[in-house]
């Protein structure tokens, strides 16, 4: 169940984008969803001093990042004091091994999972599968995507690429649910299917929205209750999180929570805000007897080295940048071929995977600025996209692996020649004059440029000459 039928990769961005653009179903599903989300987000902030709130959110995240190593140590100390076991993983592979070891120590055969993008990043399900442990997603969207042998196409709404009919087919084929267009019936069927699995699971795995260093508290934001089930019913709870999710104080959480829910889905609040500070204590009747926290680096400490790119680590994973991106809205999340799609994915994934694999992602943007404008913590996404574009062609001094991978000798030579001509007037005049005379020989096709555009045709007389002539006529 964990191997996708269709593998999407960032290397195939252009082909995948072509496929998505030519698929009316995908386009309609995304268009409808994203248009609605944009309106909902705007309305959700209508009664707020949005700029003040965004500034506060950005400052809280910056403050946490400025003290990141200290806060991680404090978080570890507080969690351990509360009875939560803390583990550290340098990469996804190591994090998977830690989770698998915990499962094996308890003889686990079945894992139930709440939504966690870090676990997607780690490919945890496939890893557990290899160890003979079944991992079942319990978030409805993730469950549907897993049934369909796919990966999520959005970080908040994993099954947004599917419509009701498609979901009905998937549930019918995979679980025997009667075909229906009634969403309540489908939801009730999924509820019944998953309730059994919550009770049977040996281990629950969840993500973390905010980890509070001050109190050793793991905060989980959700609507469905599957997160609460996952972290309450099985005897062992394993939370996995990127190291950047730590915040300094409990008081830092309310503004970030207010920003997260409104930015993500336009909700003023989610149904559940679940704060876990320890395993079941003596005398308590439910809750896991063990809680583990796995702190995952996976390239984040490398991002942390660079002042500019460090802004990426502020992200609170709301997905607003995707919802507002004219590119994402048209091609959908699978096109990007990465765990995190859309604008945030286009600046985060090059750090995590290197520019060799992700060189097309920073160019998957119109640079219209919408992503930066809606980002609740003011990540300057367009600036970072430009920065990565420069690094991809070997300009600037960054630390992203694979810098310079897109550098083309022909392109560099062309621009250098252009620069020389444009700064030497007589050579410029001579060259443009010759080009004007030979304009009949200009090619009709210029590679991908002319797929959707007409080829530029040199003018017979340059603008410079035309202006000069007009001035002479005016004077005479």
């Amino acid at each position: 169940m964990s191997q996708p039928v269709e593998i999407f990769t960032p290397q195939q961005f252009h082909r995948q984008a072509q496929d998505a653009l030519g698929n009316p179903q995908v386009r309609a599903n995304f268009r409808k969803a994203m248009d609605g989300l944009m309106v909902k987000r705007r309305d959700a902030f209508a009664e707020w001093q949005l700029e003040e709130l965004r500034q506060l959110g950005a400052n809280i995240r910056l403050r946490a990042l400025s003290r990141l190593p200290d806060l991680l140590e404090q978080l570890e100390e507080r969690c351990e004091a509360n009875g939560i076991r803390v583990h550290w993983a340098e990469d996804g592979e190591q994090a998977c091994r830690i989770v698998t070891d915990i499962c094996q120590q308890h003889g686990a055969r079945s894992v139930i999972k709440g939504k966690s993008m870090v676990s997607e990043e780690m490919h945890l399900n496939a890893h557990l599968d290899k160890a003979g442990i079944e991992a079942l997603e319990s978030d409805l969207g993730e469950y549907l995507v897993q049934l369909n042998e796919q990966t999520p196409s959005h970080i908040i709404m994993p099954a947004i690429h599917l419509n009701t009919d498609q979901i009905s087919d998937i549930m019918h084929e995979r679980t025997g649910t009667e075909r229906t267009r009634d969403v309540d019936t489908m939801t009730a069927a999924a509820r019944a299917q998953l309730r059994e699995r919550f009770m049977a699971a040996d281990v629950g795995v969840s993500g973390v929205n905010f980890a509070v260093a001050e109190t050793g508290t793991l905060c989980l934001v959700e609507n469905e209750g599957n997160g609460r089930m996952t972290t309450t019913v099985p005897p062992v709870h394993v939370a996995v999180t990127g190291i950047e999710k730590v915040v300094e104080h409990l008081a830092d959480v309310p503004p970030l929570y207010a920003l997260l829910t409104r930015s993500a889905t336009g909700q003023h609040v989610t149904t559940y805000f679940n704060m876990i500070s320890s395993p079941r204590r003596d005398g308590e009747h439910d809750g896991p007897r063990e809680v583990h926290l796995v702190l995952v680096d996976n390239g984040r400490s490398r991002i942390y080295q660079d002042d500019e790119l460090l802004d990426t680590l502020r992200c609170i994973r709301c997905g607003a940048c995707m919802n507002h991106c004219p590119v994402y809205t048209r091609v959908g999340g699978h096109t990007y071929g990465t765990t995190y799609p859309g604008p945030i994915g286009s600046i985060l994934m090059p750090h995590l995977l290197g520019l060799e694999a992700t060189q097309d992602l920073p160019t998957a943007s119109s640079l219209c600025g919408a992503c930066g404008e809606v980002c609740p913590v003011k990540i300057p996404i367009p600036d970072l996209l430009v920065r990565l574009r420069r690094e991809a062609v070997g300009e600037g001094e960054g630390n992203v692996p694979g810098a310079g991978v897109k550098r083309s000798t022909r392109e560099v030579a062309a621009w250098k020649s252009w620069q020389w001509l444009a700064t030497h007037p007589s050579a410029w005049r001579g060259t443009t004059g010759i080009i004007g005379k030979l304009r009949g020989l200009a090619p009709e096709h210029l590679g991908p440029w002319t797929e959707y555009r007409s080829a530029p045709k040199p003018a017979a007389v340059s603008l410079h000459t035309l202006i000069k002539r007009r001035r002479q006529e005016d004077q005479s």
Partner: protein
Amino acid sequence: MSARDNILQRLRERSSAPQPAPLSDFSVVTGRQWTAEERVAHFERWISSVHGEIIHCRKDNWREALVGILSDKGVQRLALGRTNDVAREAREWLGENSVELVDVDRDIGDWQREMFERVDAGLTSTLGAIAETGSLWLWPTPDEPRLLSLVPPLHIAVLDADRIEDTLFDVMSRHGWAEGMPTNALLISGPSKTADIEQTLAYGVHGPRELVILLRH
């Protein structure tokens, strides 16, 4: 070196200058200055917008209101605590009714299937609420475990109107949450819901389908 030491070392040995730590001005999440009536109105507006049902009642007649809900919703088996005031009063009153009372002050491992399959409703007290978002504040206890507000298809919560405060930030700071967090702290705003199927809202996907709040004045 361990993974822990490697990660911390990489973070500490940042080649660039230390990052600035800007001051945080929290005034945007506090200082609402609402009156008691406004607080109730905000709370009702927001909890209703997410499908929470409010029944206004008085502190001296809330048990009659509870009986009415149980009858309206066809509740036959009600799970509830034993020692908290809400559960004690409810037990006294419901003793004469036909509703079967299910004790929750026992290890869930012994009766999990019963809880998942046979309990119609869970009754809980609340510690307070947040006007700005229409959220109930609960800290589960041995008397009222976590699953009581999650597993039964109907969650009935009892809330005193004078325990509604303006914002989450206010509740956390005024009640000193940071000085001692419980095992599990919860905010609940409406019944369980999803919009994962083509953005269509559906309730009760994993938790309760209905949330009824007895708001005591």
